[in-house]
């Protein structure tokens, strides 16, 4: 095999590889969970991506599907444009085509192994692109903030607030209390 043939085969092989990976990259989002109730803001695909994301991010004892439903509920209070941006961000996160260029991955996020998913999280966290970093932090913060609204997670961290209703009978009812 002369040099020219080698190069030709190499280039063709590279092209086949990229096309093949590109083919993998456009595989549809994998269904990783079934919603427990109707979604308000998240599109069905976004829901799947965020559940896959949450499963890697929140404590193992948290129910990732419940967490994502809570995020969905919180998003109902956001402006329409922010709701749309959140869905778009999850689409970007899932999409392997830019991932192929920037992270070297050939599959949508939902189809990656857990270890590869963690590598994607770190890629986004450490990215030189501000959009990726802040997008990753927005998803991470939303999942973790909603996860820790669940009291079941509190004993593991030692958080022990007063019981709900502990002070109800003690509330001052006078608007002038303390006024002088």
């Amino acid at each position, binding site marked *: 095999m002369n040099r020219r043939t080698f190069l030709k085969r190499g280039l063709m092989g590279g092209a086949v590889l990229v096309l093949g990976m590109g083919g993998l990259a456009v595989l549809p989002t994998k269904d990783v969970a079934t919603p427990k109730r109707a979604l308000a803001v998240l599109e069905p695909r976004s829901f799947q991506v965020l559940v896959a994301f949450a499963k890697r991010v*929140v404590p193992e004892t948290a129910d990732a599907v419940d967490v994502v439903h809570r995020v969905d509920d919180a998003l109902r209070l956001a402006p329409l444009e922010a709701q749309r941006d959140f869905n778009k961000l999850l689409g970007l996160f899932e999409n392997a085509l830019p991932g192929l260029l920037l992270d070297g991955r050939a599959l949508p996020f939902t189809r990656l192994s857990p270890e590869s998913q963690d590598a994607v999280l770190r890629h986004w966290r*450490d990215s030189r692109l501000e959009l990726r970093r802040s997008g990753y*932090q927005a998803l991470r913060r939303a999942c973790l903030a909603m996860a820790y*609204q669940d009291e079941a997670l509190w004993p593991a961290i030692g958080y022990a607030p007063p019981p709900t209703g502990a002070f109800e009978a003690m509330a001052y009812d006078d608007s*002038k209390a303390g006024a002088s």
Partner: protein
Amino acid sequence: MTSLAAVRANPHVIDGSTSADQELTADVCIVGTGAGGAVTAAVLAEAGLDVLMLEEGGYYTAHDFTMREKDVMPRLYQEGGLRATKDLGVSILQGRTVGGTTVVNWTTSFRTPEDVVAHWHDKHDVKGFAYADLVPHYDAIEKRLAVSKVEESTLNGNNRKLFDGCKKLGWAVDTLKRNVYACMQTGMCGLGCPVNAKRSMLVTMIPDAIDAGARLVFRARAERFETSGNQVAKLHVTLLDAEGRAPTGKTLTVKAKRFVTSGGAINSPALLLRSGIDGAVGARTCIHPVVASAGFYDEDIFPYRGAPQSAASHHFAHRGADVGFFIETAAWYPSLMAGASPGFAGEHLAFMKNVNKTGVHVAIAIDGFHDDVAGGRVTLRPSGAPVLDYPITPRLWQTFRFAQKRLAEMQFASGAKTVKTLHDPERVMSSPGDVDRVVDGAPYEVGRLPVFTAHLMGGCAMGDDPKRSVVRSEDLRHHTLENLYVIDGSVFPTSLGVNPQESIYGLARLMATRLAARK
């Protein structure tokens, strides 16, 4: 005595979510019931004016304050606590309920520093009042809201560490004033005081206004003013469902002799912009941007017990050509801190696990006093919702880096064994000798560490130059619309260098008193 339960049941308190289309009239219509709106309403109603208050949020009371973020965040905070700046670089904590942010703030009460008022006079054409004019109003507000200085013996663990660490380093530090009556130290200020010890607008000035005959419609979102010549003719209002998420399809139209907008530093400029009122509207929005440091101690801190804020250091407030900052503590609530803590899965859990021995201290940058740290801008999204574009400039990042070093030094001085910035991935310091190396080696960029704000100021600046300001400083009246006033934190031409609630109360009381005299 005025029973809060009786105020809530007063027929003048109207739930917009169940209201039909209607047209209301008033002498004065006030949009927003936070620090600015509630004080203005009380003063004007007590002066005999027919006052109508509008509030986008719901009417929640101590019975609803369950001390659980899952219940409270969607009810009491703008966008359920997920509000952020345009590039997601800064998380915004702002109230959205009857009583506004005063219901969820941490009770810290400072008068506006005298030198700040002088700066406004000299640099921002604020000639309509002097510091001395504000003093009697601060006095009156402090009496009404039971504002008093914290006894050092009552500092909680988190504030004790701040106080002791600063003392050890020779930095100025003091206990601060709080607007509480017989505080039961629940630690839950940020989630709504469950015992009404916090003398927020919800339990003081709004009841005063209702007592004096004012009306309040809640779940009512002010959409736009309709202007005619140099007057606001009407205000168009959308009524929202019981959860405050969607319009009911019913509307309210208000005709009033005067209109006051008191929606705060994001919503007031947004209302003006939606009404086609522009000029300097939305510009110079200052936010006291905050970075935090976590100190891990051997002994118990319990950062969620006791008054969240009771000590502060202004040692670094005046740094000349560099941006100043002040140091306070942060309340520790699990959802808030989970969002702010670095890492994911096991790494994140490890950070959260030490809660009872964690001290969280914050550096609050004083923006608006340097040309390249002049605040952000509120604009409208296509839907009409506001968004704050707040670019963090290189000088501000430098300030954060410097401030983070000082926070770490203070935490080590007060006994911390380990200190972490909130960078993601985490940056760890094991001794004071690590501080410069670790902090200098950490990246200060959007998306690398969390930045917060709970103090929103500016966007409808007061001043006597119409090109640089929105309202006149003598009475906070719009420069050209003769019956439109802005009375809230949005009128400040800069940030304050102190927590803003009392500054808003005092200015609102002065201006409402002047307005009442012109009835």
